[in-house]
Structure formats: structure tokens, C-alpha cells
């Protein structure tokens, strides 16, 4: 066994030291009838070569995004990741370190987290950010819980443009905590409908309003009036960003008045990975910092006065506070936060802006070309790198037909909202810098065919 260093001679010597005759003497607290005499019914050990072959065979049964024209988004985006990002996250000192509970020998991780927090806070337009959550959807629920703690109210109003899986997570959790959730499915209109939402806020005095920016259909709305309405009614505005690259080009939710901004950081540095692991972003106002969930890295000095970093404000957390903690989260998404931070450092302000501009320019081009197809209608007035089109046919089978032609042509709203007939012809198309001219032509030609 290549991962087990003890030799049989070591084992006998050590058994002698511990005063045991056989290894099972050490398992003597296990009731006899529960101790397995034989290995369970699974294959025996295998060589590295054999394992790699088995798993490569499995992986080849998938169509990977890089080998076909690819236009999927809706909460996970394909972006180019610089080679150095993966190199750095594979350094053993980052990859195989634990949570930095011993700060004297974890300054690398701690400084990275401090830099990550700074990048996230600035990008989302907030004063402080934490050291990451599992993903955007769980960060969204934690934000609602936090808003409830601050406002002492139970109702969260979700905007119709919040990703339906996020809505589903919130509803699942709220069922158990007794929170009230108001949510709606979107309609295929250009208007994000914030006026209706403001009326809801005024009528119901909720704990918070949750709005995705840009929303699941790709629409972008000004959050300022919404924030004002929330604040006038004692509610918090929670903004959810599932495509942080957008913030290189459009205003951040924080600067428009959002009180808590959460996000899915996957699109910067992390990769698609079939849904996980991703990295949840969580930022808020300084005055709410003690209500925040999750780990925080903070600056301090060591015994010689040198600057250093530690995990701090842990009296909020489960390992100190137990059942009174702000969250049960422990392990978060450290290595993905590192990947995010490295990619963001490579981009910098200038690179992020260029990346965002390139995404938007490509998306505009694709939107124009697709909406020129007879019967296809562009839903959005506003969008960043993702928009919704309405097809003359049902979109879900159309996506499958496109896949048969070797084009992964977007996410159908039928997949996301199987019970909403009014959305059945909707198709959400994401266009990033990875899309080539040939990809666009392939999508255009494919859509023309399936729309006939």
C-alpha cells in the first residue's frame, strides 16, 4: 500500500510497545459482533495506473465545456483561469495546511485571507467581508438569518429574479427555522419590477429583501430606490451576486445601499467543477460585523511588534459559542478563496475591467445575432454577460437538440422552473471571454434549426 509507511516489522514492534498481541486487541471496546472479520464487499486496492485509468474512463463519458461551443451560466460561469492560479493552489503549504488555528505557522493562509477579505469587500462595495462561505446559495441563507438577528423580524421577501435554486435553499431552511418567505417566479419582461417590490416592503415591513444583481435572467436594476425603501421601513437590503466579474463594469450593490452583499465567487479562479466546490462571498457594514457568520482574519502584532494576522472575533463562532453561535459553519472554502484571490490579484483593477468589458462586448454581439433569428426575441433591455431570449418553441427540448448537435447552448428556464409554463420558451445565454466567433456561429446556426 503506497500510502501506508508502516512495515510489518514496525507493526510488530509497535504492538509490543503498546502491550497488544494483535491489532484487534486495540479494538476491544468494539462489541465482538460489530467488529468485521473480513473486508467489506468492495474491490481490493489498486495501483495508481489502474485508478487513473478507471477514473479517466468515467470522465470521458462527460462532454466538457472546453471541447464544445458553450453558453451556460445561471450561477456558474466558464472563464479562463491563468495557469499560475492552479500552480499556486497546488503548493503543498497551501493545499495541505489546516485552518490557521496556530497563527505563528499559518501566516501564509492568514495573510491570504486578509487580502481576500479586502478584495471581496471592495468588489462588493462593503466595509468588511469574511473569509468565505460554502457557496453563494448557503451564503444567501446565512444573510437572511443574520438580517433576522439584526431586525428581530421573520419575513424575507425574495425578488423574482433570485436564482430558483437559491430560492429553494431558502425555503427549505425557513421551513425549519419558522421564518416567513415571500417569493415569486420571474416573468419574461425587461423590467425587473422593483416598484412592485417596494410596494411589498411598504406593506409588510419585512426583515429583509433579497435581490440578485444581475438577476437570474441577466437583468440589471438600480438598487438605490430599493435600498431607500428598505431603510425607510426598518428592513435590510441583501444583494446576491452570482457573477462577480460583472462588478468590474457595473456599480457594486454596496455603493447603492445594500446592507449585506453575498456572492458566488466561482467565476473568479475556481472553475465549473460540476457544481462544487465553490466559494461563498459575504460582506456587510462594519457595524454588523459581530452578527456575521464564518471565519474572519484580522490584523494584529506579535510579541516583537511585527505585523501578523490571526483568526478573530471567534466568540461569534460554534467552537466557542456552541448553540449560541451566529452559524454552525466550521470548514469553509479556504482553497477556493485562495484561487479567487490569486486570480483577482493577477487581474487587478485594470484586468478585471478589461475582462468585464470583453464579456459585455461579446454578449452584446451574441444578443444581437440571436435576436435577429426569426421568432427569437431578446427579453432584456439591460444585461452584463448573460441575457434571456424567448424562443418560438419550448426551450428545454431545444437545449437537448442543440446538445445533440454538439452545442451546449444555454440554460432553459424549463430546467430551472419546470412548473412555470409562461417561462417554458425562455433560454438564458451566458457569453464569456472563452466564446469564439466559431462558437457563436455554431449556436446561431443550431438555434435557427431548432426554432424552425
Amino acid at each position: 500500500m503506497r500510502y501506508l509507511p508502516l512495515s510489518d516489522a514496525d507493526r510488530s514492534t509497535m504492538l509490543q510497545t503498546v502491550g497488544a498481541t494483535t491489532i484487534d486487541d486495540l479494538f476491544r471496546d468494539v462489541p465482538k459482533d460489530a467488529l468485521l472479520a473480513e473486508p467489506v464487499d468492495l474491490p481490493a486496492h489498486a495501483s495508481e495506473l489502474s485508478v487513473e485509468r478507471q477514473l479517466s474512463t468515467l470522465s470521458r463519458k462527460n462532454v466538457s465545456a472546453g471541447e464544445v461551443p458553450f453558453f451556460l451560466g445561471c450561477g456558474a460561469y466558464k472563464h479562463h483561469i491563468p495557469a499560475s492560479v492552479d500552480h499556486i493552489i497546488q503548493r503543498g503549504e497551501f493545499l495541505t495546511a489546516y485552518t490557521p488555528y496556530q497563527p505563528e505557522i499559518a501566516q501564509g493562509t492568514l495573510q491570504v485571507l486578509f487580502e481576500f477579505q479586502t478584495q471581496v469587500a471592495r468588489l462588493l462595495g462593503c466595509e468588511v467581508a469574511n473569509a468565505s462561505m460554502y457557496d453563494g446559495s448557503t451564503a444567501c441563507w446565512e444573510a437572511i438569518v443574520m438580517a433576522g438577528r439584526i431586525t428581530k423580524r421573520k419575513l424575507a421577501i425574495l425578488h423574482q429574479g433570485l436564482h430558483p435554486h437559491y430560492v429553494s435553499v431558502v425555503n427549505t431552511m425557513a421551513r425549519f427555522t419558522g421564518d416567513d418567505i415571500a417569493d415569486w417566479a420571474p416573468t419574461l419582461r425587461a423590467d425587473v419590477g422593483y416598484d412592485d417590490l417596494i410596494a411589498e416592503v411598504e406593506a409588510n415591513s419585512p426583515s429583509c429583501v433579497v435581490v440578485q444583481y444581475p438577476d437570474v435572467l441577466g437583468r440589471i436594476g438600480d438598487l438605490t430606490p430599493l435600498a431607500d425603501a428598505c431603510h425607510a421601513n426598518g428592513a435590510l437590503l441583501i444583494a446576491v451576486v452570482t457573477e462577480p466579474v460583472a462588478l468590474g463594469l457595473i456599480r457594486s450593490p454596496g455603493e447603492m445601499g445594500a446592507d449585506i452583499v453575498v456572492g458566488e465567487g466561482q467565476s473568479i479562479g475556481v472553475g465549473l467543477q460540476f457544481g462544487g466546490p465553490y466559494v461563498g462571498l459575504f460582506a456587510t457594514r462594519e457595524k454588523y460585523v459581530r452578527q456575521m457568520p464564518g471565519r474572519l482574519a484580522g490584523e494584529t502584532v506579535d510579541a516583537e511588534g511585527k505585523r501578523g494576522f490571526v483568526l478573530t472575533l471567534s466568540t461569534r463562532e460554534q467552537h466557542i459559542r456552541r448553540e449560541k453561535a451566529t452559524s454552525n459553519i466550521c470548514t469553509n472554502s479556504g482553497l477556493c478563496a485562495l484561487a479567487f484571490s490569486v486570480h483577482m490579484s493577477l487581474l487587478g483593477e485594470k484586468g478585471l475591467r478589461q475582462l468585464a468589458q470583453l464579456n459585455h462586448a461579446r454578449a452584446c454581439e451574441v444578443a444581437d445575432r440571436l435576436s435577429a433569428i426569426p421568432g427569437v426575441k431578446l427579453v432584456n433591455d439591460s444585461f452584463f454577460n448573460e441575457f434571456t431570449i424567448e424562443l418560438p418553441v419550448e426551450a428545454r427540448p431545444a437545449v437537448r437538440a442543440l446538445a445533440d448537435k454538439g452545442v451546449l447552448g444555454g440554460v432553459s428556464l424549463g430546467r430551472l422552473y419546470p412548473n412555470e409554463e409562461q417561462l417554458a420558451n425562455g433560454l438564458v445565454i451566458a457569453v464569456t471571454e472563452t466564446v469564439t466567433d466559431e462558437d457563436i456561429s455554431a449556436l446561431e446556426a443550431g438555434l435557427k434549426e431548432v426554432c424552425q
Partner: protein
Amino acid sequence: MTVNPSGWRPSTPANEQGEAQTVTGNRALMLEEALLFEIGSTDQTGVDFPDFKPVTGRLGGLERNREIGLAGLSEPEAVRHYTRLSRQNYAIDLGLFPLGSCTMKHNPRLNEKVARLPGFADTHPLQPIDTVQGGLELIDLVGRWLTTLTGMPAVAMSPKAGAHGELCGLLCIRAALEARGDAREVVLVPESAHGTNPATAAFAGYRVENIPANDAGRVDLEALKARLGPDVAAVMITNPNTCGLFEPDMKAISDAVHAAGALVYCDGANFNAIVGKVRPGDLGVDAMHINLHKTFSTPHGGGGPGAGPVVLSAALAPFAPLPFVEKQGDRFVLVEEETAEEHHAQSFGRMVAFHGQMGMFTRAASYMLSHGSDGLRRVAEDAVLNANYILRSLEDVLEAPFGASGPCMHEAIFSDRGFGEGLSTIDVAKALIDEGFHPMTMYFPLVVHGAMLVEPTETESKASLDQFIVALRSIAERAKAGDPSLKAAPVHAPRRRLDETLAARKPVLVYKEPAPAQAAE
């Protein structure tokens, strides 16, 4: 944006004693590194783009009109920044990392390689099902290994980490109780439990009550039985427990809990001690999360990502969260909200946007297939042998509160009794840092005074253990002799002890550019 034009590093070497001071604060290979925001600038970038014509007309009038303040670095600067920082970290790749309850074992590099195969790493969670059959098959494969190893009929793969898995298990329990019209309010947790247990129970809407341990470090069965009643929804047990001991009464505990109409949650953080040797399903467990980042070697990454699949008993299986993978004929499907209605209507719902930590499943699959059923047994055996070897090699110098009651499982626990005036566990831990080891878990579990919980794992050689034992023995002797120099440890780490009180009293959580007056100095 203001940058740090001189490249000056933050450290002040002025207080170092007996060592040659350097202008930079560096000491040969020990390189100080400034913050990204002190060395980068907003107009530097390490990424090139093709020429294109920017357009902004369709952004809803919300174009950004102020600078974000994101520092950029060229690639050589970035690689150097992070490489320098990485060298200030201890890691399992560098040496023994005996954190009790954390299972810091070697992370095989094959895992990393297969996780990066494009068929796994470069697929989107919402791709048409027929284009991701291999991905779904892989999830099914890992699930099958987990159910077989635990002797449980079902598994929920989507939870993102251990605490999220605990939440999943408790929500299954709550849904099952609600389905039979049985509202119960209390979850019992042993006082030695990891903090996530009570926090999770509270997050799931339960009231938490502690159950005491007996003198042998085990759950007090009689006290537990006395507390069980119609208000108790579940008991959360860690087995092997956080004192590193197997709960010999586990089956009796489960039977008593079931007889009272409640369910048994088992925290699987310590599964490494029994993998391939004991199936929790045989002990009456209803739900147990498995930290793939512990037992199944996926890397800890400086604090995640983890993965926390939850195995479930037949009583809880119908309530498992969405989505999940199911094999229908020779095709794998993803059961989501729309299809759940047909044959999984009791699911408690979705707890995460997509379908779990795929990148961790691929790594765990690689580990499982590599070890096989025979190798996984050996994992538990060697892990337990290594821990007992440490226990018996040090119990003459460090008090082992449960040493007399018999062997430990995969971790050895010591207390700080007998240390000289003013010295405690933290001083021993920090002195271990100077000797080139990561400290053990300190002051946990709370039931042992000044607890030192040592988990060596099976991937340590005897030579490595012997070196650790020599080092810890020497430090323990110094602690007992009251050696005050231990208070100063570590002296050889990149930093001396850090002022955590200051950090909490005046939290500085993000970098702020110095005020102009300061910058001009």
C-alpha cells in the same frame, strides 16, 4: 491607487535579540512579504486580453463610476508573492500534523490529478443530463462506497462540509418526526461534543441539552436514559468520541433512543478509526456525516473546501435532500424538484444550489479505489496503532486521563496536570512549533483539563512518530520542571505569539491605505 513604491516590508527587526539584524527584515530563506495592496497597483495586470471594442450602452445606466481599489500584479510578482506567503505555512507535506479530530493525513497527488480531468473539472452543473453521465456515475460510485463501508442503505451527497452534513442529518430527522406528526424540541449532545453539534442543532431549530460523560470518558448511559422522553428528537453522538475512545454502549444507546421514539445522529468526524472495521449501521445509527476531507484524504486547503455526505438509515432515507443521483436502467438521472414529486415526495428539500462537492468526490473516489476494501481496513488499524504507540510512549511524562482504562482509538489524549506554575497546554504546543511540528488540538475536549488531543493518522512512519515522541517528551519534562522559557515559544517561527486580544478588541479586517500624511513619511 497608492502603492508601496519602496517595496519596504512591514516587519521591524529591531527587537530581535542575539541575531544579526538585516535591512529588509528577511533572514535568508525566511522572506517577509508585504500585503498585496502594498506591492500591487490598480494599473498593473498579469492577464492579457485581445483587442476589442468596448461597449457599455446596455448596462441599465449603471456603469461603474468609481475605482474599486483592486491591486494587480504581473505574473512573476504574483507567483513570488504567493510562493513567499506559502512558505510561512506549516502543512502536512512538511511534517507530522497531529491535530486531534482533524485527521490530517497525507493527500495523495493522484487525487489532484484526476480531479483536474476536464470531464470532471470542466463541466457545468446545469448541462443536459446526457452530457454528464460520467459525472453522475462518479457521484453514484462514491455514494456506493460510503453506504457499503457504513452499512447504511442511503446517502445524501450534497452537503458541503461536516457541519453542513450535520445539518442535513438533523433536517432529515426533523422531517421524519414531522411526517409522523411528532413535534419534538430537544436534541441531546454530550458535553464533549465538537462545537458544531450544538450549533447545528440550534440552526435546525432545536433546543440543546448536554448529557454528561462518565469517569471513563464515555457517554453516561444511565444519565442519558433518564433524560430521554417524548420531547427528545435526537441524540448526537460522536463515535469514536472526542476523547479518542470508542463508545462500547453504542448499540444500547441507540436502542434506548429508538425506544423513546427519537433518532440517533452520529458525528462521523472520527470515522478514520473504524473505516473498514466497524459499520455504524450495525450500531443502530440513523444518520452520520462523513468528512471526505478527513477519512478520505481530500486536502484541507487551509480551511476547506470540505465535503460532508450523510449516510442514512431506512427510516430517514425518504427524507434525503434534493438533488440526488439515481440509476434508472443503464442511465443515471438527477432527481430534482420536478421529478421528486413522483417518487420522492418526502424529501426535505434543497440545501445547496447544485449537487455537492464534485471536486472532492473525484479525489475521494481516487483514494477509495487506491486503498480498496483491504487497504481501508489497514488505514483504520494503522491509525489506531500509531495513536496507541504515542499514548504508551508518553504516558509516563504526560498524564493520560483515560490511559488506564485501555487502548485509545485513533487519537491519544493527555492533560496538563503536573505542569509547573503558570505553564499550560499552550506553552507545550508553541514549543512543539519550534521543534518543527504542528501542535496537537489544544483545550478540546473541554472535559479534560488542558486537553492535548494527538491524532497522528496512519500516514506517519514509525521514524516520524519516534521523532515527535522525543520532542514532546523533552518539552513535557521542561513543562513539569516549570521551565519559564516555554512561555516565550515559539522563537523560530515566522512570527512570535500573536496578540489575539488586540485583534478582537480593535478588529482590522480589511486593508486601508495609510492616510496621505503617513504615506509621505
